[in-house]
């Protein structure tokens, strides 16, 4: 494995630099102290919780201790921004691909200079880039959205697997609803944008236009996606619920409150942990349906970045190299269900489980999303307007106008900067 050799090389480099510092500076003691100082790593959710389990191997190989902090997804964006403003970012941190452009713009990230880190990626996976087109992040895990479905419930409604096109999928929902009127067919939480943007991505709609300076939500293809999304709630096939209302989706899935749950790969960990409630034989995964068949879906791919202000960039990159090695990614797949971004990891028997087949197929067909600072906010605000349509406060066409208006306002500053040429 090349990963191990590189690790040792990086460690030697940092040791050499420490020795140099020792001989040059009278305050050599400080440098030794720095060496003992742990490298800091911030990661979100399970990736943060389980990171310490990947560290003993790294510390053994390099002698560098690592201190991990977990951030909750709901507060990660503001925490990282304030850390950048206060110049207290950790050496290494995880970012979803959609945020990389933003953090590169504000000078928080060091560019990836070692091209070996970006080779051997799974087809369809690529490094997120900054405004200048340079890569700033090393892909770590991929999380396309698929649908988790209850095999027994679908079988009773006459389906071996969920249909692949929108109309048949909705018909399946109607049949499920007819069999159990108090329950629902789908669970799509109303404050999460992922399913709406999956539907939109599958129509081929481009959400922004004019060099990503204006909204393009009045596009008929986006209208189709929104109309389909809203119809699932109007026909009461999905409950109009927020994430704060469904406290335990796994329990609700086990009870049959809904039969189909579009979600990312980490749900497999929860489902395996709670196999007593819902045996593995009763659920499976499939690609999300598209207008005419499966297509591109949204997802949260995670990358690792190194802070531009890291005092020990060599050690930080060594940690990135360790965490994104096929061996670490396979360990993580086993521990928390995230899917490896390295192609080599996919050649192992561990990833040939049937429940992962849908993810592997979906990963070959990723979406290309606008890499602009405002994108995260645009998705959230568009989803807020979609929520009002679902609740009957707004018609579909009025909503599309409202989305374009809102997005144009959010992009006003970007538009001004692009027009004056201050932004590429």
């Amino acid at each position, binding site marked *: 494995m090349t990963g191990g050799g590189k690790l040792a090389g990086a460690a030697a480099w940092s040791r050499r630099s420490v020795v140099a510092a020792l001989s040059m500076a009278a305050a050599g003691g400080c440098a030794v102290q720095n060496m003992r100082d742990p490298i800091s790593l911030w990661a979100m959710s399970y990736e943060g919780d389980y990171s310490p389990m990947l560290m003993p191997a790294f510390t053994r190989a390099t002698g560098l201790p690592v201190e991990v902090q977990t951030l909750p997804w*709901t507060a990660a*964006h*503001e925490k990282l*921004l*304030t850390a*950048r*403003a206060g110049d207290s970012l950790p050496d290494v941190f995880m970012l979803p691909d959609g945020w990389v452009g*933003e953090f590169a*713009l*504000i*000078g928080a990230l060091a560019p990836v200079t070692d091209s070996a880190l970006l080779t051997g990626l799974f087809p369809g996976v690529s490094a997120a880039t900054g405004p200048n087109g340079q890569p700033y992040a090393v892909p770590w895990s991929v999380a396309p959205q698929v649908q988790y479905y209850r095999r027994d419930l679908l079988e009773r409604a006459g389906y071996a697997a969920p249909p692949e096109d929108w109309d048949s999928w909705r018909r399946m929902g109607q049949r499920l609803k007819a069999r159990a009127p108090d329950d629902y067919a789908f669970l799509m939480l*109303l*404050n999460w944008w992922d399913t709406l943007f999956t539907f939109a991505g599958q129509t081929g709609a481009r959400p922004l236009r004019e060099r990503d300076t204006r909204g393009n939500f009045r596009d008929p293809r986006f209208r189709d996606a929104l109309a389909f999304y809203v119809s699932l709630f109007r026909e009461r096939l999905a409950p*109009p*619920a*927020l*994430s*704060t*209302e469904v*406290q335990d989706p796994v329990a609700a899935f086990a009870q049959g409150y809904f039969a189909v749950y579009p979600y990312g790969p980490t749900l497999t960990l929860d489902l395996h942990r709670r196999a007593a409630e819902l045996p593995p034989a009763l659920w499976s995964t499939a690609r999300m349906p598209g207008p005419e068949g499966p297509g591109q879906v949204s997802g949260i791919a995670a990358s690792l970045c190194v802070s531009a202000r890291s005092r020990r960039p060599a050690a930080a990159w060594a940690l990135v190299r360790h965490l994104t090695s096929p061996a670490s990614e396979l360990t993580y797949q086993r521990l928390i269900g995230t899917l490896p971004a390295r192609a080599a990891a996919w050649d192992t028997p561990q990833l040939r489980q049937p429940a992962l087949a849908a993810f592997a197929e979906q990963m070959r067909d990723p979406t290309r999303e606008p890499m602009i*600072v405002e994108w995260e*906010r645009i998705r959230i605000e568009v989803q*807020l307007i979609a*929520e*009002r349509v679902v*609740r009957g*406060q707004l018609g579909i066409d009025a909503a599309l106008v409202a989305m374009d208006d809102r997005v144009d306002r959010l992009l006003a*500053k*970007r538009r001004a*900067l692009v027009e004056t040429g*201050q*932004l590429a």
Partner: protein
Amino acid sequence: MTRQERTAWGFVLPVLAIILFVFALPTVLALALSVTDYSIYALADWGALRFVGLGNFTDLLTTPLFWRALGNTALFALLGVPMAIGTSLAAALLLHDASVRWKPLWRVLLFAPYVTSVVATAVVWRFLLNTRFGLLNRALGWIGVPPVDWLGDPHASIPAILLFVTWKIFGYNMIVFTAALAAVPHDLMEAARLDGASRWTRFRHVTLPAIGPTLLLAAVMSVAGFLQIFAEPYVMTLGGPAQSTTTVLYFMFDEGFKWWNLGQASAVAFILFLMILALTLVQARIGRRYEWL
């Protein structure tokens, strides 16, 4: 300057310096920020910063969500202040009655929610308010009321959060009122009773004037508190459903810390400051009319 004055300044200066640095200076800086378009682009490059004058304020006036946030906050304050103070006063009056035993125990139990963590209790309350298996809906079911979608219906979300907030904070003012009630002149009460004044008349003409200043203080603090309500909607509903619990402070937090539009957020902070100041002045004037101040 006499020696006494010098000593006085010596005591006051450190405090004044702290107030200047942690209060006055940030306020002035925030005011300065509110006339710029400071955003994430300015974090990247100071060259992108522009002076926009009152642009942020006029912008806010045309932002529908800001108006909705103002409306939601007003609703929180209009319903919440009477609800919270009423509950506090009622609990204090009940505990004040001579026939109540184990008073310290009751006081501790009723005050306890005030010192608990918002996040932990919010999790419990989200379960209590759950539409399908929440205790509240089950209790309503016994008296024949159909289930209410407390946190999912845009019309029920504010009352649901107010239930939680009232439960959480009424203990504080209850203790304050308990202290005030103890100071109500006993002989005056006896005299009123001998003169045949009813329970309500005694409350209206003896108790209320005596606790007037305390009531005013509680009202001022509660209004300021409810206008700045943030943590409860943040942990209970994330501002939803359909932004029906997004308050002014929540809007400011999102703009400022989540999206780094600190120019816009400072403008919101300034407007909120003026609102609280204006309301407090009105309350002070009312207080002066009744000679409570």
